[in-house]
């Protein structure tokens, strides 16, 4: 029987993660148990009311960009200004002012009609490419598994969006550090995405979207427990799981009564509207090469010692020949 994930267990996990963050340690180092917090979304419960969307906007409003206008002229011309500040109310896709939105799908599966809705936001990957490949360290992963973009450091180059398998981060021009450097030629604003209310979680509170949900679609807790619960739910309801293995594993686990391939065909995808496809581990090849890199110094040293030995042998043989000849 899987253990119920209660507010108490979540708060315990959160408090432990916060304590570790405070002393600047990675939780994995300090504990054998993974300290990542994951969310479970049972989309059969979602009624698409949008309460999570509204709560997210209200709670995170103080983090939203307030761009300075007019924007600096961008060079070269191909660099496009991305301005969402006049469309702050947009809630049908991800924007710098809308970090979660409701995706809907009408599907027929095994002769049964489904009208499904699901909140979409950052998946908070276990090994997030946005964080690992950010050239400035502006994208950060907290010890509790939350990945967030630091708006004080981000230059808005949008690399995080390009390397994200779901293209989640969204850019707002006219705000951030780049304005203080060379705004026309370096950077283009700041990238924004769901930070799973990291500040609330630090205080031991629930992320806003989870707290307000009238249908209790989402739960949060230690990843292992969430996975156990997701598998139990999937077994019980003959449902399907998304997010456990995608991109090598994420901290957002969806459980659906319909296979995600079917859902993916039914949802609207595109800019700011993430897909539900299978996603291979984007960091896998790089990390394999990183481990192979450990062999490089060994190969170099072995090669050098081999050459030294060869030279010494040649010199000795030559010396012998010379003495014989002499």
């Amino acid at each position, binding site marked *: 029987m899987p253990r119920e994930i209660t507010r108490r267990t979540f708060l315990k996990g959160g408090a432990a993660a916060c304590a570790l963050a405070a002393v600047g340690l990675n939780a994995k180092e300090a504990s054998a148990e993974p300290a990542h917090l994951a969310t479970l979304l049972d989309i059969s419960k979602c009624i698409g009311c949008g309460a999570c969307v509204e709560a997210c906007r209200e709670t995170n409003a103080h983090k939203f960009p307030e761009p300075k206008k007019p924007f600096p002229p961008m060079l070269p011309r191909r660099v496009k200004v991305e301005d969402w500040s006049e469309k702050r109310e947009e809630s049908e896709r991800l924007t710098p002012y809308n970090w979660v939105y409701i995706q809907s799908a009408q599907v027929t599966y095994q002769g049964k009609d489904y009208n499904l809705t699901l909140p979409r936001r950052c998946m908070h990957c276990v090994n997030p490419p946005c964080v690992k490949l950010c050239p400035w*360290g502006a994208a950060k992963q907290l010890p509790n598994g939350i990945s967030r973009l630091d708006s004080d450091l981000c230059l808005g180059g949008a690399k995080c969006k390009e390397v994200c398998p779901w293209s989640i981060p969204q850019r707002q021009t006219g705000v951030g550090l780049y304005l203080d450097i060379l705004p026309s030629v370096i950077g283009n604003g700041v990238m924004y995405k769901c930070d799973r209310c990291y500040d609330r979680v630090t205080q031991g509170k629930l992320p806003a979207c989870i707290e307000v949900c009238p249908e209790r679609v989402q739960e949060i807790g230690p990843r292992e427990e969430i996975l156990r619960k997701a598998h139990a739910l999937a077994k019980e309801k003959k449902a399907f799981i998304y997010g456990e293995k995608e991109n090598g594993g994420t901290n957002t686990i969806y459980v659906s009564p319909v296979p995600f391939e079917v859902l993916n065909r039914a949802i609207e995808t595109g800019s700011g509207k993430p897909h539900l496809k299978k996603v291979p581990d984007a960091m896998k090849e790089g990390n394999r090469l990183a481990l192979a890199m450990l062999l490089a110094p060994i190969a170099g040293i072995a090669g050098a010692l081999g*050459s030294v030995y060869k030279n010494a042998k040649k010199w000795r043989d030559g010396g012998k020949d010379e003495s014989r000849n002499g």
Partner: protein
Amino acid sequence: MEKMKAETVEAPKERNRWIYALYVLTLVMITLSGFAQMPIFKRYYIADLPGLGWLARYYVTHLIHYLSAAVLIGIVSYRITRYLVEDRHRLSLTPSGYLRGSLLLGLIFSGALLTIRTLRANPFPPETIVYLDLAHILFMVLFLFTLLFCALFKNKWTKSGF
């Protein structure tokens, strides 16, 4: 005596010509793929040039950077071992040789730590990663400027002109 010394010095140069060529090629690739970690090649049309489209593909440049780093670490390990075991008594480094060597080791060390952070079991807190990124970029800029300076003023790694 002078002739003998010159021959002794000339021999490793001859032997290592292919290693030097590999070193230069690796430096070119690692520099290009390193700069490509920043979103600049697409923005400034460089990736539009024939044959340079790969510079705008982050996962490709990430792999090339790692591959080049592995080759560079191999070459540096080879060279240091050879120097310590064999060449130490007959080749002495110039000040610019020491500077280049130190900067190169700094680049490799900061790069190695940044490589560790891409693994799942990253031990570094986010603030440390910002400093590591900045250190890696600083080492890279200083190393490239030093290389340029040495090329312009024909400064060699060793006093024997090797």
